[in-house]
């Protein structure tokens, strides 16, 4: 799977979570850029991503993802192709 596929999957997860079909994530999207993507929804998003890929992030990691790209990279690191 390429970065773009992962990005599309993450976008779909977030759209479902926030109920907003206009969300479009890019590698450099930050949480503040998406209306309604606050800290409360963040954990739910992370767990949904974990479930999707069957992986587990470390708590310290979760707190420090600077943008969506970092999450994509962490997924790739957790499950090498």
């Amino acid at each position, binding site marked *: 799977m390429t970065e773009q596929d992962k990005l599309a999957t993450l976008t779909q997860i977030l759209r479902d979570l926030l109920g907003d079909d206009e969300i479009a994530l890019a590698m450099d999207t930050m949480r503040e850029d998406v209306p309604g993507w606050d*800290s409360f929804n963040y954990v739910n998003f992370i767990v949904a991503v974990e479930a999707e890929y069957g992986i587990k992030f470390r708590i310290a990691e979760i*707190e420090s993802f600077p943008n969506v790209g970092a999450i994509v990279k962490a997924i790739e690191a957790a499950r090498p192709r």
Partner: protein
Amino acid sequence: MLFNSYLFIFGYMPVVLAGFWLLGQRRRDWALIWLTLASLFFYAWWRPVNVLLIAPSIAINYGLSRALQRYGETRPVLARVVLLSGIAFNICFLGYFKYLTFLQGTINDAFGAGLILTHVILPLGISFITFQKIAFLIDVHAGRVTSFTFRDYALFVLFFPQLVAGPIVHYREMMPQFHAAPCRFDAENVAVGISLFFFGLAKKLVFADPLSRLIAPLYTQTTPVTMIDAWIAALGFTLQIYFDFSGYSDMALGLARFFGIKLPVNFNSPLKASSMIDFWLRWHVSLTRFLTAYIYNPLTLALTRRRQAKGKPVFGGRNTTVSAFATLLAGPTILTMFVSGLWHGAGYTYVLWGVLHGLLLSVNHAWRLLRPRFWRDARSYTRLMKPVGFVLTFVSVVFGMALFRAPTIGGAVGLWQGMVGFHGLTVPKALFSHFGPVANWLQALGVQPVWSSGSFLMEAVLRIGILLLIALCLPNTLELLSRYEPAIGVRPPRQQPAWMGRFAWTPSPAWAVGLACVAAAGILSLGELSEFLYWQF
């Protein structure tokens, strides 16, 4: 020593700054040691014996952090034990001073045990200091803080601008700043610092304190509070604590900036919030950040993973089941806000206030999930419903504040009953007579003319009206100073109205005159010493 005292403004601060800059010219680390010692002195001034409490607590926490750092990688089980005992130590430390009496009282209330209450004097700022220390332990354990010395740690805990009432800061956002600070006089830092400090001083002394004196009798009144008075009490306290805490937060930002240090955002026009979630992202931001990162997130993460392992449905956005919502969102939210309430004060009113906010937040989240089912277009929804959200949030916050301020739950309920009209509506006779024919209609509707002070009502309405306009319509200090990064990460918005650009703070003669007036108003009101509301927490 209060920030709002002659001694602090004209004695302590000039001496500390002069020493800091002079030493900074020779060696930076001398300046930082001076700052640490000055902070300890600041803390000791209030009650010297407190130093005997905070010093061992710093030493023990430092020792535990060192152990965590040492065994974090090699012996994970041991590291976990150290972390948990560290957290337990800090909670017990706080518990003894803050909650022992409350616990004894609760046991007495519940079982009629007749325990004699131990009266312990609360060391200043202990709730804030404790949370910050716990965050540090967790950060070291999680590998977010990798290197630190005792000197750094002591400065991080004691740094006086944020020592007593926050913002609750993280080591990783403070230490790089201390390490990079030039420790020299810098015109921009001093100008921004002075501006923030005096904005805060004026908010506290000119806006918050007179209101506090005005409404205090309403909270001790033994007869039922009628509708107008009840709203004056609730709105008045909301605005009092708003300007008190906003003022404190500005002063903390300003004082830190004198030393070239930026603190995180703590207060960002919360009354402008259009939802409860939005409110908590604007009111006491650093506390929300702490509670989210160290209680809510780990809790939901663990719960969600557990549900998933059992094969039960987890939180799935618009497809969320009721049980997933209750266990994974409402439960943790209410629990987190319960902790927040308890943290604010050892009393039933604070606990209930926290739970109430937890419930309101849960309702807000539930609505966010349900809304798309019957109002699909997010844009039209936002446009039409934002004002409704604002009003609902505002009224909820005001009702909550009555509970926060009331001496007992019974008192708060009485006030709430008054606000919705259970105790009738009265108007001072002197004013009533000015209403002319309208007076008859009002009387027919049940409005009672009574012998009470018309000037009290006028003053209250004027003060509350003006302060509401300021809180709701004017840009806040962060926005005014956004070009100079008044708090960590604050920058001018990408689009802002043209008039904002014209009024924004600049080192100009016009602003100098304006700020001199603000400062004069603040200093001339210094007479009476009044603590910040948040210093008691």
